[in-house]
């Protein structure tokens, strides 16, 4: 039994005290300067990696090397998944890079369906790279554009801090069901990256809340720890096993942790006095 479990959500929220957040607002923007700068570096590193990995992925596709392209699909996506809350700020790119078939009326057959998941569909369902050249080129152009645009972006603090919860919402809404990577079943890669991205944000702002709210911090860390432990069971030398191998019990545990993290991290902005 974990001590935090006895603490009700309402009690936690009251503990901050209505009003105190306002007074905090100014100090907090100052205090956030450093975590935000660190986060910007984290994002920049990831988009750089994304461009690099996508270049290799696209090369494999254009070489017609189906097996190699398949093996690069999961790992290439991870740097995108880690920084999704920021990447999503450019909604035009997010759509062309990461939209899923069900975002389109005609699903897989829709002419507008492009990006990672279109490539995933052709690689796994058709077992070919035929017809993918143009889509692969577009993907590389899009992630390169993303890298550039993100470097020019001033990060809105509430988007960054809120991003910790947004990543959990993503997992809770579509990843836990295995819908995201439905052809390749590489969902665990995405999962792991989403958690890493969320945890990164939490750790950066943790020094600002740990004193006022040690129990909250302990609870969140414990839940991240449980997730790591569960995912560790499915690690292989170079990544993760197929999502289909996840047992029902582990899926339930992950669901509970994700939902709890989503609830708790949804208070992070408020705890920091951000709007």
């Amino acid at each position, binding site marked *: 039994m974990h001590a935090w479990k006895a603490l009700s959500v309402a009690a936690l929220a009251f503990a*901050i005290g209505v009003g105190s957040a306002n007074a905090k607002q100014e100090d907090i923007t100052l205090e956030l300067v450093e975590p935000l700068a660190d986060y910007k570096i984290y994002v920049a590193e990831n988009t750089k990696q994304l461009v690099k990995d996508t270049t290799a992925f696209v090369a494999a596709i254009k070489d017609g090397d189906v097996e190699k392209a398949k093996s690069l699909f999961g790992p290439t996506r991870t740097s995108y998944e880690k920084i999704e809350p920021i990447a999503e700020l450019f909604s035009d790119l997010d759509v062309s890079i990461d939209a899923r078939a069900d975002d389109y009326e005609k699903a897989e057959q829709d002419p507008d369906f492009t990006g990672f998941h279109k490539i995933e569909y052709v690689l796994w369902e058709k077992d070919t790279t035929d017809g993918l050249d143009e889509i692969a080129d577009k993907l590389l152009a899009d992630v390169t554009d993303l890298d550039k645009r993100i470097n020019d972006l001033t990060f809105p603090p509430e988007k960054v801090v809120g991003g910790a919860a947004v990543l959990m919402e993503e997992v809770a809404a579509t990843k836990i069901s295995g819908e995201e990577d439905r052809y390749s079943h590489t969902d665990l890669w995405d999962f792991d990256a989403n958690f890493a991205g969320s945890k990164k944000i939490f750790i950066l702002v943790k020094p600002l809340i740990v004193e006022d709210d040690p129990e909250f911090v302990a609870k969140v860390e414990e839940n991240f720890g449980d997730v790591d432990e569960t995912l560790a069971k499915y690690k292989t030398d170079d990544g993760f096993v197929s999502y289909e191998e996840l047992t029902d019990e582990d899926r339930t545990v992950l669901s509970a942790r994700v939902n709890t993290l989503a609830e708790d991290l949804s208070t992070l902005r408020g705890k920091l006095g951000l709007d």
Partner: protein
Amino acid sequence: MREEKPMKKSQQATPQDETVSANRRQVLLGGIGLAAGTALAPGQAFAKSTEEEAGQGQVAEAPIAGKTVKQRVPFHGEHQAGIVTPRPANGIVASFNVIADDPEDLEALFRELTARIAFLTQGGEVPELNPKLPPADSGILGPVIEPDKLTVTVSLGASLFDKRPWLRELKPKQLIRMAEFPNDALDSEICHGDLALQLCANLQDTCIHALRDIMKNMPEYLVLHWMQEGNVPVVQASAGGEHGTARNFLGFHDGSANPNSTDAKEMDRIVWVTEDNGEPDWAMGGSYQAVRIIRNFVERWDRTPLGEQELIFGRKKDSGAPLDGGKTEFAVPDYAKDPDGKKTPLDSHIRLANPRTAKSQKNLILRRPFNYSNGFTKSGQLDQGLLFIVYQADLMEGFLAVQSRLNGEPLEEYIKPIGGGYFFVLPGARDRDDYLGRTLIEAIRSEPSQQAAEGL
């Protein structure tokens, strides 16, 4: 604040419009010939009062609830509410997977769940939080929660016990995983579960609010596995006070021959686990709950001759009276006088379900179902059915025995059980200091193996 707008003339339904459309329908009916002679012109009998009341106000004004939102079902008691409580119009069964690694976790779950249910069913103000935080409540019922006859009934599935060595020994002795009957086509995505909540209220929004509240407050313990909403058609109050049972989606009164739920002695025998049942001590005052999601093939049913429909059930469709006589649904059939089933066929639903012999007395069960409507199927047929919920002290003599007798009944051509599960309803929380599941937690603690594990 919104200004109160005086009603404009144009917003009232004009009487002429109504007459025109009424005439039109009469013409249409007249064309069919057969129906027109006996049919009331639409609106003729009821028009006056309803049109006046229905015509007022702004389009988006909230519909007005009756005084029933104030109805409050006591939470504390020997038994949980929601079983012998008169069934309100709406209900949900939600089944969860439970995360609880040890008795402490399970106790914390039960305590938190008890606190949520006590608040939700008794009503009160929603706490106000710092506006920079997500609000404490979904807000769908506004800042004050009215009780609205809400009950939330907690029950446990076999898997909760089976998966945990420290619980296994304490499983109620008849609690099993639901197995497939011959006519079933079970879908594992809507079957079984560790813990079920039956939420019932006058309004479906009240049930939904309660479900969202519990899920929001308890994500670390409960992961939703499946759920099914249902409702029953409401009727006008009758002058005599007794207005009969609601109808199911096959158009028949459902619940007519239920045991008398206001007779405490009868309920002790049929519904509540007592010392006579040989169950573990902690289970006294609980009950077995069988939930079945049973699809109805309504299009096909509606194309079946009335006489055949009535023979399938053994009751008249309009009155609900048994086929061997009587005016109302509460008349009692006398099968001894009809041994060959000339009036009530031997394979009719009610005769198989309850042959009314001395021996079948021990198979009585308390049914508390809702109808459900889940949209439509790929074939363009309506996806409707019965969210069948039944309570009994003895699952084998109750649901299992009755269903076994029903296997192969003519009704099967029109129904298909697809989901549900068996659960054991926890005894009630007796007072403010008590919590649902306390007797089970105490039993775990006094198990010899558990004491050894804890070094007691």
